[in-house]
């Protein structure tokens, strides 16, 4: 795929679809003249060979939520499943960055919501789905029910040369990682070289995006200090129900859109956060999925990781084939 910066691709998408529904960004997260060494050292560290692959990030389905401003229930989540299954390049895995379900005091009801989440997500045609909890999954019971359904809330794994780390910044009820998990993270990362490609996925932003909207992690700085030694770190998160890009030093942070309702751009908004109004004529507006492609090649002065956000309305206008056509040829 020809590479564009985000601004230029947004322009292309806008002229194609009439709305800014599809954009692409190509961070330099994995670029650099030492890329060959990077892949070799990672392959040695993880025991896996580096190879091209793609994956999808989903976030904030809030299964069980049916209130205003969004009467869609699980329809956006189900549409996202269809969209993933229609992608021309089958993703290797799906990362779900929290708030799989909406919380409730009643444990049986919450368990039913988690089961419903699993019923929908198992229709995704991918070999592997990984999750981290959001505060609506794990904030009331310390993550006990979440772990019954989805296993540990922080862990790591290697896939085709990329090291993935799931961080839990919700189960302690407050927006924090905690000393134990931080110590685990440092130990987990210790075996990797400086140039290893690392993808962190978590729910809340690790930096102060908007603290008075609880868009932060209180000990996020300590996490980033632990990551400072590494040159190729990408953080994927959810929680804020909108796409966002941010850099802290060498670390690239990307927020995903939600699958239930959207929040506005916090810049310039005073006072409490309020969801964007529901647009009944475009019910999937501002909701979407993210695809991430890793080309696995040594490309000095270029990029090996590409991030694309696809609004669910894309299919509404052109059909999934139209989206795929755009994905294959952004110059359409």
């Amino acid at each position: 795929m020809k590479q564009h910066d985000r601004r230029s691709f947004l322009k292309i998408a806008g002229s194609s679809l009439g709305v800014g529904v599809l954009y692409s960004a190509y961070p330099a997260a994995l670029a650099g003249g030492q890329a060959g060494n990077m892949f070799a050292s990672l392959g040695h560290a993880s025991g896996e060979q580096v190879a091209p692959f793609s994956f999808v990030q989903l976030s904030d389905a809030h299964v069980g939520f049916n209130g205003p401003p969004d009467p869609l229930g699980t329809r956006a989540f189900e549409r996202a499943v269809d969209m993933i299954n229609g992608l021309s390049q089958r993703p290797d895995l799906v990362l779900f960055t929290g708030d799989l379900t909406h919380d409730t005091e009643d444990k049986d009801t919450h368990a039913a919501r988690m089961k419903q989440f699993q019923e929908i997500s198992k229709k995704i045609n991918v070999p592997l789905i990984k999750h981290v909890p959001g505060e609506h999954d794990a904030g009331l019971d310390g993550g006990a029910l979440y772990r019954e359904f989805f296993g540990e809330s922080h862990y790591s794994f290697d896939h085709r040369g990329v090291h993935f780390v799931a961080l839990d910044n919700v189960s302690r009820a407050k927006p924090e990682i905690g000393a134990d998990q931080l110590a685990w993270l440092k130990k987990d990362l210790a075996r990797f070289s400086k140039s290893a490609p690392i993808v962190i996925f978590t729910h809340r932003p690790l930096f102060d995006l908007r603290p008075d909207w609880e868009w932060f992690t209180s000990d996020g700085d300590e996490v980033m200090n632990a990551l400072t030694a590494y040159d190729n770190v990408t953080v994927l998160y959810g929680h804020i129900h909108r796409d966002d890009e941010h850099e802290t030093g060498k670390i690239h942070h990307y927020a995903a859109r939600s699958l239930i309702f959207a929040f506005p751009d916090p810049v310039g908004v005073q006072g409490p956060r309020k969801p964007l109004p529901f647009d009944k004529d475009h019910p999937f507006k501002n909701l979407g999925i993210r695809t991430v492609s890793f080309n696995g090649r040594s490309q000095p002065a270029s990029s090996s990781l590409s991030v694309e956000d696809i609004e669910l309305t894309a299919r509404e206008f052109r059909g999934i084939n139209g989206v795929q056509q755009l994905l294959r040829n952004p110059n359409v």
Partner: protein
Amino acid sequence: MFQEKLTKTAFLTALCITGLLALSGTKHAHADDVPVIEITAKRFSFSPDKITLKKGQTVILRLHSEDVTHGFFLRPLHLDEEIPAGHTTDVTVTPQTTGTFMTICDHFCGANHGNMNMTIVVE
């Protein structure tokens, strides 16, 4: 000689602690003549939902929860407290910055937790 060194160390320690408290503008100790403002937390609101403080004037915020554990978080005033159910938490604050600030519950307390906030005005 040893006594003098010990006294100097104690003095420097006290100076450091005082300095840290002055920097943060908040502390948990309080005197009897300091005004007290009572704030009650209850899913999913604070009562009162707005208070006004004066820059440089020390007050005690007396926080208590009527139901579950809540948080009381306001970065510009360095407030980050837990309010356990059935307990009272006193926080002494001397605001040094004027403005209108939104204070939030940052201890997840239920479905509408994200809308639990109050306003602190510093004049």
